C-alpha cells in the first residue's frame, strides 16, 4: 500500500489545478515560468512538476498489482520489479550503469524515459547521455561526435535549455575544445533554475570547480564551492581543499578533507589533489622555520634593482594561486622603489652615456614599459585579482588601466561580431548563437573578477544595447525564450553593478516576461 499516498497527492494536485483554472470563465493566458511572478509549486503550471508524478503513480500501482497477483510466481514478480525499476529510476541506471559501460544507444534510449530528471529540459536527456558516453571514450570516435553534433544543431521545436547546453559543453570536451566547454558550462549559471535540470548544473559545477582546482585558483574555488554546497557532494571536498590551500590547515580540516574526498564522486581523479595537499602539509611543517628563498644573481647588482630583479624572478617561478598573488604584490612594490630611486636612475643614465646610447630617456622609458607589461602579463594568472592590483600603487593602477583597455578591446570585438551578423541577418544554429553570448559572459565575468568595478562600469555600455537587442531577437523571432531570458537576467545584473538604471529597467522588465 506504499504507492497509495503518492497517487493521492498527485490526485490532489490535479484537482487543485483544475479548480484554480476553472475559477475564471475566460481562458487563461499561456503560462510562463521564470518571470517575476513564478509563485509557489502549487501555482506553477502543471506541466512543470505535476505530470511526471504520473510515472511514479502508475509504477507504484503496477508494482503493487504484480506483487498481489503474482504472489505464488516469484519469477514473474521479479521480472515485473525489474521492468518497473527501469521505468521508475531510468536516469539512475543510465548514469551509474550504462554510461560507465559506454553503451551509447542503451544510454540514449533509457535517458528518454527519465522524464522527472529532465522535467526542466524535456527531450534533452538522450543527447546528454550520449555526450557523457563520448567523454568516457578516449579517443572519442569522430563519427559519433559528428552525429551528435548534427543532432544538437538540427532545428527542433524544443527550446535550448540547460541539458542541451551541457551536451554542447561535453561535446566540446570530447573534441578537445576547452574554451568552448568552459563557455558552455559557465553559461549554465545564467539560466533560470527552472530552465536547467539539476544534473546539468551538477556537471557544470564540477567542471568549474575542477578547472579552478587545476589552475590553483583557490579563492575562486572557495567561492564556487560555497555556492554549490547543496548541489553536489564534490563541493564539500573542493571547499575543504580550497580552505586548506588558503592556509587554514588544522587537524579537523585535514580529517574533513579526507572524509569529503571519500564521499565525493570521481575519487580516482581527485586523489592527486588530496595527496598533493597532504604532502604539502608535511613539507610545510618540515620547512616551517625556514624563510622562503628568493632567486639569486651570480653577480652583485646595484640597489634597489637587486631586490626588484629577485622579486621579478620569484614571481616568474611562483605557483598560481596565493603564492602568485603575494609574489605579484612584492614585485610591484620592489619596482615602485626602483622607479622612485633617483640615484640608481643616474647610475643607469651614466652607463647609457658610456655605451653611446642616443635618445637615452626613450630607451629607459622602454625598459619601464617592459616592466609594466611583464607585470600586466603576470596579473592574468589565476590567483591575482583586483585587490592585488589596488595594492600595487601607481604600477598596479597602470596595470589595471592597461588590462581594462585590453579586455575592453576583446569585448568590443565580440560585440561587433554579433552586431554585424544581426545587420546581415545571418542565421546560425542556436547552439553557436548561445555559445557566442556565453563566451562574452565568461570573458566579462573573468575580467570583472580580475579588474573590479572600473571594468564593469566601462564594459556595461559596450555590451548593453547590442546584446539586449540580440537577446530580444532570440526571444521574439527564434522563440528561444530560456536563453534569451538568461541573457536579460545577466544584463540586468551587469547594469545593476554598473549603476546603469535605464538598462537595468529594460532588462528587468524583459526578464520578468519569463520563458
Amino acid at each position: 500500500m506504499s504507492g497509495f499516498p503518492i497517487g493521492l497527492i498527485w490526485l490532489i494536485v490535479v484537482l487543485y489545478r483544475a479548480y484554480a483554472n476553472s475559477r475564471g470563465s475566460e481562458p487563461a493566458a499561456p503560462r510562463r515560468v521564470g518571470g517575476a511572478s513564478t509563485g509557489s509549486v502549487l501555482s506553477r503550471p502543471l506541466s512543470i512538476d505535476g505530470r511526471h508524478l504520473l510515472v511514479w503513480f502508475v509504477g507504484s500501482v503496477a508494482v503493487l498489482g504484480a506483487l498481489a497477483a503474482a504472489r505464488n510466481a516469484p519469477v514473474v514478480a521479479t521480472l515485473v520489479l525489474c521492468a518497473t525499476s527501469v521505468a521508475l529510476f531510468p536516469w539512475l541506471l543510465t548514469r551509474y550503469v550504462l554510461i560507465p559501460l559506454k553503451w551509447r544507444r542503451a544510454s540514449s534510449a533509457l535517458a528518454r524515459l527519465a522524464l522527472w530528471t529532465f522535467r526542466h529540459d524535456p527531450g534533452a536527456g538522450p543527447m546528454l547521455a550520449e555526450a557523457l558516453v563520448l567523454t568516457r571514450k578516449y579517443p572519442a570516435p569522430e563519427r559519433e561526435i559528428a552525429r551528435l553534433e548534427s543532432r544538437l544543431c538540427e532545428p527542433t521545436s524544443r527550446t535550448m535549455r540547460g541539458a542541451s547546453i551541457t551536451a554542447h559543453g561535453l561535446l566540446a570536451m570530447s573534441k578537445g575544445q576547452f574554451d568552448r566547454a568552459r563557455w558552455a558550462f559557465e553559461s549554465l549559471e545564467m539560466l533560470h533554475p527552472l530552465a536547467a535540470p539539476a544534473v546539468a548544473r551538477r556537471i557544470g559545477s564540477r567542471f568549474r570547480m575542477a578547472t579552478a582546482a587545476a589552475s590553483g585558483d583557490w579563492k575562486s574555488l572557495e567561492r564556487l564551492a560555497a555556492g554549490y554546497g547543496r548541489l553536489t557532494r564534490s563541493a564539500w571536498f573542493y571547499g575543504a581543499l580550497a580552505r586548506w590551500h588558503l592556509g587554514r590547515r588544522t587537524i579537523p580540516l585535514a580529517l574533513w578533507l579526507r572524509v569529503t574526498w571519500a564521499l565525493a564522486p570521481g575519487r580516482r581523479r581527485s586523489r592527486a589533489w588530496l595527496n598533493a595537499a597532504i604532502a604539502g602539509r608535511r613539507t610545510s611543517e618540515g620547512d616551517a622555520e625556514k624563510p622562503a628563498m628568493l632567486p639569486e644573481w651570480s653577480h652583485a647588482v646595484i640597489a634597489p634593482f637587486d631586490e626588484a630583479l629577485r622579486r621579478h624572478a620569484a614571481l616568474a617561478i611562483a605557483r598560481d594561486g596565493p603564492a602568485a598573488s603575494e609574489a605579484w604584490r612584492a614585485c610591484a612594490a620592489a619596482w615602485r622603489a626602483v622607479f622612485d630611486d633617483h640615484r640608481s636612475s643616474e647610475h643607469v643614465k651614466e652607463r647609457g652615456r658610456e655605451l653611446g646610447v642616443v635618445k637615452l630617456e626613450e630607451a629607459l622609458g622602454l625598459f619601464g614599459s617592459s616592466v609594466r607589461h611583464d607585470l600586466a602579463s603576470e596579473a592574468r594568472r589565476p590567483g591575482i585579482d583586483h585587490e592585488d592590483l589596488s595594492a600595487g600603487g601607481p604600477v598596479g593602477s597602470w596595470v589595471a588601466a592597461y588590462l581594462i583597455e585590453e579586455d575592453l578591446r576583446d569585448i568590443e570585438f565580440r560585440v561587433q561580431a554579433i552586431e554585424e551578423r544581426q545587420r546581415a541577418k545571418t542565421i546560425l544554429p542556436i547552439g553557436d548563437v548561445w555559445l557566442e553570448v556565453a563566451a562574452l559572459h565568461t570573458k566579462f565575468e573573468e575580467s570583472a573578477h580580475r579588474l573590479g568595478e572600473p571594468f564593469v562600469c566601462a564594459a556595461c555600455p559596450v555590451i548593453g544595447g547590442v546584446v539586449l537587442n540580440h537577446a530580444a531577437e532570440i526571444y521574439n523571432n527564434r522563440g528561444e525564450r530560456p536563453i534569451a531570458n538568461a541573457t536579460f537576467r545577466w544584463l540586468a545584473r551587469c547594469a545593476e553593478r554598473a549603476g546603469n538604471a535605464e538598462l537595468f529597467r529594460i532588462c528587468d522588465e524583459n526578464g520578468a516576461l519569463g520563458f
Partner: protein
Amino acid sequence: MSVVSPGAYARVLTNPFIVLGLPPNASPAEIERQGQRLLLQLGAGRDGAATYVSPVGPGTRTPDLVRWAVDQLRDPRRRLFHELWAGVPPR
C-alpha cells in the same frame, strides 16, 4: 624595438647575458669570443654547453639562441635594455 611582454619567466630566462653566461659589464670582444666558443662547443655536441644556469632555473642553449644573444648585444640601445634586466653591477 617594440614592447611585447614574453612574461617574467621568459624575460629572465632568455636574457642574452644569462644565455651567454657573462656578467653585464662584459666587453664587446668578450661577448663575441664567448659566442664563438659556445657555437663551437654546441657544434661539437659538448654536453655542458647545451644547458645554462639562470635565476629561474636551467635553460637550454641552442646555436640560434646564442646567435640571437650576441646579435642583441651588438646594438648599444638593446644592450642597455638587456643590461638592466641582467642586473647593472655597482662601480
